[in-house]
């Protein structure tokens, strides 16, 4: 199907506009992080400048060192992602293969827990954590992130396991494998891509969280997004540092997301849509 030249030019122009729309804010943030304070808040935008590492250096030296925040973010995100993926893989396989009666209700429970409004969940969780002494601790934050990552992992892994024909495991069973061996040596290797996608998406969801961290975390457990918003004060905003933190928060997640691009549709639609 060939379209007229004019239409194709128009299409290309529209696509260029789309790409500019999605990319310009991120490029501008990246550029801002390498600008001096005067350049980053110049009334006329500065497009050409000599890049400086000043903002990053200031972030990791001096009074408000970012390193503890970075550490908290990494521990909370990786911790909840690993636990969610391990438990979710086991649970998801169980959910996919079980023939129990309440299967439909059980899976509905998983998905509604995943989708529960954060504002509604954090309210009772805050009280529970207060009673249990988990407020402002990293285990508390990991648990809070598990409240959405675990049901996500179970649900999505179950969708991935649904794509593995059970007949393969049945023949393994006939050949003398235990149910565990059939799971471990047959079903699991075939779902490796799903496993990686699940882990990466859990990592992104937890790393990007702001709502839970603002309530559950405190001085001993604050994460990067909190550190970023704390730079916004009544007296003014240090946009140089802010764009630098933004870059540190965003860059690893973009790389991780792109790495699992092929399975992203499945992951983000909770298994409702399968990609090419």
């Amino acid at each position, binding site marked *: *199907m060939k379209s007229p030249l004019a239409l194709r030019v128009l*299409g290309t122009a*529209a*696509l260029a506009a789309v*790409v500019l729309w*999605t990319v310009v*804010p*991120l490029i*501008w943030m990246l550029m801002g992080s390498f600008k001096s304070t005067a350049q980053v808040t*110049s009334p006329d*935008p500065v497009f050409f400048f000599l890049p400086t590492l000043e903002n990053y250096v200031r972030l990791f030296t001096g009074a408000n060192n970012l390193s503890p925040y970075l550490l908290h973010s990494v521990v909370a995100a990786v911790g909840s992602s690993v636990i969610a993926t391990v*438990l979710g893989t*086991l649970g998801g396989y*169980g959910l996919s*293969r*079980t023939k*129990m009666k309440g299967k*439909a209700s*059980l899976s*509905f429970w998983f*998905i*509604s*827990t995943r*989708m529960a*409004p*954060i*504002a*509604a*969940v954090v*309210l*009772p*969780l805050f*009280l529970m954590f*207060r009673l249990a002494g988990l407020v402002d601790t990293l285990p508390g934050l990991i*648990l809070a992130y*598990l*409240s959405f990552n675990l*049901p996500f992992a*179970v649900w999505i892994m179950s969708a991935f396991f649904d794509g593995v024909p059970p007949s393969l495991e049945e023949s393994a069973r006939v050949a003398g494998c235990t*149910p*565990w061996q059939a799971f471990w040596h047959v079903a699991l290797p075939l779902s490796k891509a799903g496993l990686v996608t699940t882990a990466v998406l859990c990592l*992104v969801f937890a790393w*990007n969280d*702001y*709502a839970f961290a603002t309530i559950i975390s405190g001085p001993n457990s604050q994460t990067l*997004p909190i550190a970023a*918003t704390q730079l916004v004060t009544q007296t003014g905003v240090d*946009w140089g540092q802010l764009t630098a933190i933004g870059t540190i*928060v965003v860059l690893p997640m*973009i790389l*991780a*997301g792109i790495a699992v*691009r092929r399975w992203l*549709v499945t992951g*983000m*639609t*909770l*298994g*409702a*849509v399968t990609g090419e």
Partner: protein
Amino acid sequence: MSATRTDAPAKRAAVVRASGGNPRRKERIGFTGWLMAPSVGLLGLLSIVPLVALIAMSFSRVRLLGGVRFEWVGLDNWARALGDPELWKSWGLTIGYFLGTLGVEMALGLAIALLISRVTRGRGPLMVLVLLPMFVAPSIVGLLGRYLVDPTFGLYAWFLRGFGFGGDVLGNPTTAFLAVTLMDVWEWTPLIVLIALAGLTSVNPSVLEAAALDGAGSWATLRHVILPSISGILLVALLIRSMDAVRYFDIITVTTNGGPADATKIVPLRLFETGFRFFDLGYAAVIGLMMLAVTIAVARLFVRLLNGKAAQS
């Protein structure tokens, strides 16, 4: 003594192994049940207990001084919610925000997906560039948005000045609402593109050729061939985004925090304010349960749709 202690788990493991496939010695829980047990247990703790607590809170006045204490107040909180014009105004704003973001995201996402579906060379890198906003933490989207529309040095504000708009975008109720809507659109339209594109690539090319042979123009093809065949997938996209639209409120929190003059105070923000600024946890619980009801209704639709799809294939 130590021998029996180590024996017990081993014996249990043996029972589990045997129960999976052997119908004669079938245990009540079974192999799949044991696999689900840790997730169900942990999630029960993180979901059922909070739900019960939330319901209890909604009938109580919660005191935080010297531990946590609940004082039964009956239906007071619920009655207050029904007669609270401020809360209903928030629900109105939520619906507006919801329709605005979802409407624009669906239309724009579909349009972009249609454009990209015609690209044959370099589609991979193109998709990467289009998808980028999706991975950005919503709080950073909000902060970045603030930086871009700052009246003195924002890049987008500078552009807008070129077009004759010189005001403070986030300082005016109308433009502030528009701005937070567009920030959400920026972040989540790529998801719709991704989903719609998966639908478009699954449309059978021979159907498209047949339509072209029958002399259908591109608009007619889109309306009568393409849209009907991807309507299921678009509905999935819509439902997923609806549930997320109730979930996320980070962008608004870090940009306007509900202002100016409550113009962007959607329900989750009001809940946060009620619960964590005024510490009126009982009333906040009522708002939370209202939000939860909305999510569960949408989730029901989503699951029904999913099961319908499974039944067809």
